[in-house]
């Protein structure tokens, strides 16, 4: 449908679940015009009805979110969520360089079967190639200098970073979004969204944006932008 009506304006919604509230940012990509954040919104969860689902404990009911989004004027259907760090497993693996994607996937699956505490069929994972060794520097990949990236890429060993989480939690998130009238397109770590925001910062002139902390603003804004321009 999107391809059929490519001239229509595309909108996305970034959702960042925090302890006391839910930060929303709606990005808009008009057919002719720059990608920008259209709306910022903050929903306090004090009075919101909570989910009974054990995996989504503390999250608001999707019907409440749908109503709140409508009241806030959000019209987006594609959504991005930040995954909680506690649910995330991170691995840094070394693979033989020169492997194609299918071979890389197979090698990573073998490694995940060995390292994950639950079966691979219950795991959702994704990876990206790195040019840096595993360690503390992986937490801040944007700090790697270009010469180091080039030097590591020239090596015969390929470094990959793998993120994994439980499939049940991802499925619960997808169901929650569907119930709220949203289509979950991206589920990514908050640092990745923040990194995206830093690469393409948007002016925050909205009043609601000024209420958000800069870090939260960067994360939720990065999530919204990630749907339209990953």
């Amino acid at each position: 449908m999107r391809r059929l009506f490519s001239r229509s304006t595309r909108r996305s919604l970034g959702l960042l679940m925090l302890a006391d509230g839910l930060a929303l940012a709606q990005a808009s990509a008009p057919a002719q015009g720059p990608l920008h954040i259209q709306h910022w919104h903050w929903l306090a969860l004090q009075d919101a009805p909570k989910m009974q689902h054990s995996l989504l404990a503390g999250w608001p009911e999707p019907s409440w979110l749908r109503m709140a989004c409508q009241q806030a004027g959000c019209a987006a259907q594609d959504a991005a969520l930040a995954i909680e760090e506690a649910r995330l497993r991170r691995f840094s693996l070394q693979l033989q360089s020169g492997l194609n994607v299918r071979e890389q996937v197979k090698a990573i699956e073998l490694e995940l079967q060995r390292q994950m505490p639950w079966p691979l069929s219950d795991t959702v994972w994704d990876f990206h190639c790195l040019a840096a060794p595993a360690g503390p520097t992986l937490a801040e990949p944007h700090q790697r200098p270009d010469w180091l990236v080039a030097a590591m890429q020239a090596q015969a060993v390929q470094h990959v970073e793998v993120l994994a989480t439980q499939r049940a939690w991802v499925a619960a998130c997808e169901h929650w979004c569907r119930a709220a009238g949203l289509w979950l397109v991206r589920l990514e770590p908050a640092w990745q969204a923040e990194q995206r925001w830093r690469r393409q910062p948007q002016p925050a002139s909205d009043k609601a944006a000024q209420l958000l902390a800069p870090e939260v603003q960067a994360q939720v804004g990065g999530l919204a932008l990630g749907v339209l321009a990953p």
Partner: protein
Amino acid sequence: MSTLNLVPWRERQRLAVFRRWQVGVVLGAIATTLTLVAIEQALGNINQAHEARLEALHAQQQALQQQLTEAPVWQTRERQAQQLQQAWPHWQQLQLQAWQALTHLLSVAPHGVQVIHAEWREGQWRLQVRALHWRHVQHWQTQLQARGVQVRGQPTVLNRILWRCPQGRLWRLNTYELISPSLAGASS
């Protein structure tokens, strides 16, 4: 920059590719089947038309062979018909002459002579007559000759029969043969 996404997009992409492949296989199989059916149908039609043409040619060949076999007969018949057509005026003329000759023969009443048989053969009349005696025949010949009609005959008796007259008397009747002069160029 990393683009990690934990929505299982790889699996969905693989599933979508697999479904596209399945649809492609099904569509390909359907297209192949339809193509094969169409080709078979077309070849069947071509074969049927070819067989019909062969059958027609075979029938035509048989008819031509039949005509070829009957051709000499028809040629002979045609030749005979042409000959008959060419000879027909001459025959008509001959027939007229024959009737004229017979009329001349019968222009004199044959007293005492009974004509029992008249035959036109090879351009002349052959008459078989019965008479009690050769003189009666000669008398009729003389009368005919007086009228310019020549008839020749022999006193040879071909056969004899007995004839009972109304008065109860038995007579012996002799059969003689008379021949008229032959017409020029005439044949039977």
